[in-house]
């Protein structure tokens, strides 16, 4: 079997820049870590079966605890009851025990084998709803598996050496479990540039290549691999000459990065002396260090969904408070804009919480969800207000689409503050409150919404999707997702004008803010603050320093005359091509 290992070069999509060289760590195709297989002697078989039974009992006890803990909050507690029944199901429980006995194998392996066979059966089903039902079986099997291996969880959290993670795909829940300090890079078979793996890798400043199609088939754990996130190349078991070449490239890239980030520490001011705050978007407290290294002037968007992932209940106030406080303290006195829970289809919580929705982007998400879960919402708001006692904090409400929603959100915020005062806990209610402007109705109603907030933050990704009726995940129409569509530019201009008129601040988070060739336009519109992926900060600061705000204002007049995105892009190229063409780094 072990023949001479050949060098293999495969190409994928770049999801995060950088180069790393190291050993592969394979997360197997079912998303669960590779399970060891070993032989059990006949006389040990009954012990092995008992070990399995004990694991099932522990899994059952855990489930019972969850059911007892939150029966009212979880409308779908019956799912947990179904899971309890599944734990003892013949086809799972019975078959695993049979497999242990008949094949003389360890319980983990037997369970994995039984579950893999079941999944295959489910995969052949045509009805997508029934097909998905295998998820329940998998979850139950996972909970038994966790208990079988004891404290050492069977997931990627258990990695104990520096590795390059190789997977078919990584879900947000899985990436949230990774011990990120151990990971040098990611490569996945599936996924696009905007996939979650890419977001996590970029924020951690480690290289990632996605969409490799069948990397997992060619790579074995412990294989030496090179990941070039700049060109989207992965070299498996590299030959000597490639190894030397990439060691050099790696050093060059790191030197380049050091130079650009050192320039980035200084605040950005346009050539004619107008300052503009360049902030970072983060998801994990661990990202603060990278953000500061890149020269971020604060956090313009702290996404708070991560703590709600991969768990059957909601995190409690103290748990949230600890994380928020960490971030707020580390950033002080720079501002931290905490966005309240914004769950959507891509990042749904464990399915205990999310009902099936045909159209999740238009469904029960973000502020809508929070307003029907006032207790959960209040827990988060209390945690934020408490963290605000430790540094410069702002609250941002996502997906505001009506006046009613912002009024309700503010009312619950007041209640949260009052209850904290009653409890005698230190907090700070005197903080800035903002609304995300990402739904066209909020653009139209901006003047009314402005009276209830201290700032607007435009979320361009969703605003573009809703305004142009484009699902960018849909390949048929993704090319129509165009930030420079005149309709979008006019909306941005309108919101910025209203903000100035009402004397509130106007920010932008979302990819549009982190794209160099949009900057002349955003300066011309008069943004007060831009927030982006931290790794984009140095380049955006460079572009701002080279621009003249007075020029961008007259440039805006020309932009507003354009009828198509195409002519707008041409205009930007003609006017600012020289600044934007400067290639920062070439492999």
């Amino acid at each position: 079997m072990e023949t001479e290992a050949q060098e293999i070069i495969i190409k994928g999509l770049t999801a995060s820049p950088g180069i790393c060289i190291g050993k592969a760590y394979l997360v197997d195709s079912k998303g669960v870590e590779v399970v060891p297989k070993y032989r059990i002697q006949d006389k040990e078989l009954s012990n092995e079966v008992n070990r399995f039974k004990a694991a099932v009992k522990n899994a059952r006890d855990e489930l019972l605890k969850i059911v007892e803990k939150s029966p009212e909050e979880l409308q779908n507690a019956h799912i947990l009851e179904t899971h309890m029944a599944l734990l003892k199901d013949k086809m799972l429980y019975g078959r695993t025990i049979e497999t242990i006995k008949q094949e003389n194998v360890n319980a983990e392996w037997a369970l994995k084998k039984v579950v893999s066979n079941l999944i295959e059966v489910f995969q052949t089903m045509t009805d997508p709803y029934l097909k998905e039902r295998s998820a329940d079986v998998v979850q139950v099997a996972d909970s038994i598996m966790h208990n079988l291996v004891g404290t050492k969880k069977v997931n990627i959290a258990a990695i104990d050496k520096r590795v390059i993670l190789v997977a078919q795909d990584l879900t947000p829940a899985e990436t949230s479990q990774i011990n990120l300090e151990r990971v040098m890079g990611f490569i996945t078979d599936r996924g696009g540039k905007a996939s979650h793996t890419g977001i996590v890798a970029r924020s951690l400043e480690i290289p990632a290549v996605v969409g490799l199609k069948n990397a997992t088939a060619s790579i074995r754990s412990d294989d030496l691999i090179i990941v070039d996130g700049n060109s989207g190349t992965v070299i498996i078991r590299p030959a000597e000459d490639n190894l030397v070449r990439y060691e050099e490239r790696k050093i060059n890239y790191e030197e380049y990065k050091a130079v650009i980030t050192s320039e980035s520490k200084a605040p950005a001011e346009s050539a004619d002396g107008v300052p503009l705050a360049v902030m970072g978007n983060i998801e994990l407290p661990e990202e603060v260090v990278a953000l500061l290294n890149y020269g971020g002037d604060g956090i313009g968007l702290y996404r708070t969904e991560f703590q709600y992932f991969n768990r059957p209940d909601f995190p409690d106030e103290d748990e949230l408070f600890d994380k928020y406080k960490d971030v707020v303290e580390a950033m002080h006195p720079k501002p931290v804009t905490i966005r309240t829970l914004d769950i959507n289809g891509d990042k749904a919580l464990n399915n205990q919480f999310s009902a099936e929705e045909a159209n999740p982007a238009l469904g029960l998400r973000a502020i809508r969800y929070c307003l029907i879960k006032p207790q959960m919402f209040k827990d988060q708001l209390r945690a934020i207000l408490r963290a605000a006692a430790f540094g410069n904090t702002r609250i941002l409400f996502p997906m505001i689409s009506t006046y009613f929603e912002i009024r309700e959100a503010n009312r619950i915020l007041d209640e949260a503050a009052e209850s904290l005062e009653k409890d005698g806990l230190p907090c700070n209610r005197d903080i800035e409150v903002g609304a995300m402007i990402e739904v066209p109705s909020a653009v139209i109603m901006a003047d009314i919404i402005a009276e209830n907030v201290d700032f607007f933050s435009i979320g361009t990704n969703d605003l573009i999707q809703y305004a142009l009726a484009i699902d960018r995940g849909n390949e048929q129409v993704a090319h129509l997702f165009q930030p420079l569509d005149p309709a979008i530019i006019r909306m941005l201009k309108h919101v910025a004008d209203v903000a100035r008129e009402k004397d509130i601040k106007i920010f932008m988070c979302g990819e549009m803010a982190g794209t160099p060739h949009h900057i002349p336009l955003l300066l011309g519109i008069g943004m007060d603050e831009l927030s982006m992926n931290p790794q984009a900060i140095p380049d955006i600061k460079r572009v701002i320093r080279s621009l003249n705000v007075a020029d961008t204002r007259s440039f805006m007049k020309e932009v507003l005359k354009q009828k198509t995105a195409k002519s707008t892009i041409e205009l930007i190229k003609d006017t600012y091509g020289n600044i934007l063409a400067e290639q920062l780094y070439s492999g």
Partner: protein
Amino acid sequence: MNRSQPALSREVTIVNELGLHARSAAKIAGLTNRSKAAVWIQKGDEKADASSIVDILTLACEKGTKITIRIENESDFNILEAITELVEGGFGE
């Protein structure tokens, strides 16, 4: 083991929107737990052990599927009745 001679059976159609999913299967399995002998759910040529949620799920019964419920022991007649009622009533969904 010869299970080809069931004592009693009923033919029913799945009427609930979601078909036989985990929760509805769990309800059937729950009823079957008290049976004296095996209870089967048959769809075409395939049959599933009604006491196993997983086995029921693997039958992939969507709304509109015709299934046959079979018992092997007459004393399980009340279980047959109860399952029939459950399925015909759309599992109370």
